[in-house]
């Protein structure tokens, strides 16, 4: 994302400009993609399966979660329901960006939607917030660059993960948990100071519910119920 705001001529807003605007986010895509590929391989997915997963689901956090649930032999219904809940936040991202593109056809809009991620949302919404002109070509340049980099990184990660036959001594199985720790902290980073206390109390509630519920039910149900209770407490306490 470029720091300074300068007036841009419409003819300069090209596919190539979209590609260039994607570059700062690529370090994130590549490192997380490789990690996701390694985790997929250590969850006994084949390289082809990891590649298909990254091409079709194309969402970092939920790919980690899907691998974790597959490794713990969760039922299909629980995996799909969890993925739905985890990725439902994309609705909020899409709702923010979609009004900018209403002049384009439905097919183009479906394309923008399918390829929208936290990062491309970040780049596009910054442009929108700065009142910089963006168009369909630019958005496709941004989206396609991110998408291709993601799939290649996941595939390389899976190849790397298969090459090391037992990832445990190298601590690679922990990459999943480490990722969740980082995502949790990044979530908190954007909160106002006044809200931080609420979030910290929700974390304590979720930890307690997870420990209690894990004695009573399989972990994938405990994860869902603890999350739903936590978010509900959040709504009740946040006045």
């Amino acid at each position, binding site marked *: 994302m470029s720091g300074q705001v300068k007036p841009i001529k419409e003819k300069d807003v090209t596919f190539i400009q979209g590609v260039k605007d994607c570059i700062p986010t690529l370090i994130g895509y590549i490192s997380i993609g490789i990690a996701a590929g390694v985790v997929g391989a250590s969850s006994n997915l084949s390289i082809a*399966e990891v590649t298909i997963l990254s091409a079709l689901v194309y969402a970092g956090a939920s790919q980690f979660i899907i691998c974790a649930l597959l490794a713990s032999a969760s039922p299909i219904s629980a995996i*799909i329901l969890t993925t739905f809940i985890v990725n439902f936040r994309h*609705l909020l991202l899409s709702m923010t960006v979609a009004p900018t593109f209403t002049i384009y056809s439905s097919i183009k809009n479906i394309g923008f*939607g399918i390829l929208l991620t936290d990062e491309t949302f970040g780049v596009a919404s910054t442009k929108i917030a700065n009142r910089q002109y963006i168009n369909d070509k630019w958005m496709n340049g941004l989206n396609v660059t991110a998408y291709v980099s993601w799939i290649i990184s996941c595939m390389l990660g899976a190849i790397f993960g298969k090459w090391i036959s037992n990832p445990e001594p190298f*601590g690679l199985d922990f990459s999943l948990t480490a990722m969740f720790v980082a995502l949790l902290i990044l979530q908190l980073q954007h909160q106002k100071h006044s809200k931080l206390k609420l979030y910290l109390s929700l974390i304590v509630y979720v930890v307690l519910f997870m420990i209690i519920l894990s004695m009573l039910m399989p972990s994938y149900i405990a994860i869902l119920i603890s999350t739903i209770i936590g978010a509900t407490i959040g709504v009740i306490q946040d006045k």
Partner: protein
Amino acid sequence: MNVNLTILFIIMGCAIVTIIPRITPFILIRNIKLPKIIIKWLSFIPVCIFTALIVDSFIVQEGSIISIDWFVLAAILPTLIVAIWTKSLSLTVIVGILSMAAIRLLF
């Protein structure tokens, strides 16, 4: 290059439920408006689910008895510190992996 059919079905199911919230606003943007309370509820989901997943990683279930995987819990500590300090996904993952490897090597 082998693809298990069950895995493929799971991936396709996950893809469909991921694509629906992504594209719906792009198709219906003029009509859609979620109630405020739902938007607020959704805003708390990421923090809660990440917390739940972290806790799940250090709980070991054996029937109705649970125990704690102290190695994982010990590795979470430096990982958490690096996450707060650097706010970097890649650095956190690297330090996490190294911490876990070091703990397994030492104990």
